[in-house]
């Protein structure tokens, strides 16, 4: 009974720390020792977050081959779907600071991220709303 109470208490404390983190817009992913990230819109992921944390790259690696080479569209494992949900509402990107969703975790794990050397790090809706030619002179 005592053990159960201590488990409940620690769970309560964990949730409380989660709430405290949420106050500045950041969420502690992967436990209290993990990075604190701006998860953007968030919500239900296409797979269990724990699975995604260690396997997301396998899903998008598989998907990129099917999309580029076979032309299969509309999969739930598209990189653009990741970005649509997880781009920060502050800078409309998954990159930029060490709190941004992709960059934050990759910096924490010290894994180089290649996707955005070519792919846009901004959500589709935001891209549609901005005029590409407006930035043309700067290029």
């Amino acid at each position, binding site marked *: 009974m005592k053990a159960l109470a201590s488990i409940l208490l620690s769970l309560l404390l964990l949730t409380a720390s989660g709430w405290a983190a949420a106050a500045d817009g950041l969420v502690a992913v992967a436990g209290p020792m993990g990075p604190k990230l701006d998860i953007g819109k968030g919500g239900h992921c296409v797979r269990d977050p724990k699975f995604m944390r260690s396997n997301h790259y396998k899903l998008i690696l598989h998907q990129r*081959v099917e999309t580029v080479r076979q*032309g*299969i569209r*509309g999969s739930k494992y598209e990189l653009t779907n990741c970005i649509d949900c997880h781009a920060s509402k502050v800078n409309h990107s998954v990159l930029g600071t060490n709190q941004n969703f992709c960059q934050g975790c990759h910096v924490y794990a010290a894994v180089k991220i290649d996707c955005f*050397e*070519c792919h*846009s790090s*901004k959500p589709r809706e935001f891209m549609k709303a901005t005029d*590409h030619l407006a930035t043309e002179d700067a*290029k």
Partner: protein
Amino acid sequence: MSDVNEDRRQFLTRGPALAAGIAIAPGMLLIDLAHGAEARPAGEPASSKVRWGMLIDTTKCESGCDDCVTACRKENDWPVPKSATDVQWIRKVELKQESTGRQVNLPMMCQHCESPPCVDVCPTAASFKRADGIVLVDKHRCIGCRYCMMACPYKARSFVHEPVIDHESEMPRGQGTVESCTFCVNRVDRGEQPACVEACAKEGHKALLFGDLNDPNSEIYQRIRSVTSVHLRADLGLNPGISFVGV
């Protein structure tokens, strides 16, 4: 390249399919011709029943107009070329017959060949032809060797020398890879027309006609059978997807 007997190749690869098509009951073809005008359903791969192509009517292509080029640049987000080595997916070309002075305007881009030399030479299989005939570069595999650029008789491909900064388009682009016209593959998959075709029609020129070369109900299928058109460098036997009127 020119030594390859294309007819024999096609006979060997398509012979069995043709035989199967004949074997079915009269009036029923095994290979049902697909209509490519609508968006392909999610999860479905590009079909080899479709062959995307374009018919360019140079008599309607106006001198000095570069709306197709601007539209392509806007859609795929590539910068204004400042030197000969800069990225250029599509360009306007003006031809002049010296003896008569007759001038012809045309947009030049990847011709989406049936037997693309760029695919033949690619050491990493990054250069490939999709089932529906669109020739693409898989930039995940491209190592930037530029063999394809040398192999292409149309000078249609470019190498990205500079880092791509603030890229905001559906078409990923990156430094160190080769790229070219994709027929706006993302739009085509949604059932839309390539950006250049849309821009040309918007301006009222309608010099570019895009569609499925295999679909008897498509406008391009019928036009190509009713007007005189040519492939550029037809002597190479590459069977490009793009044909020209009035060249």
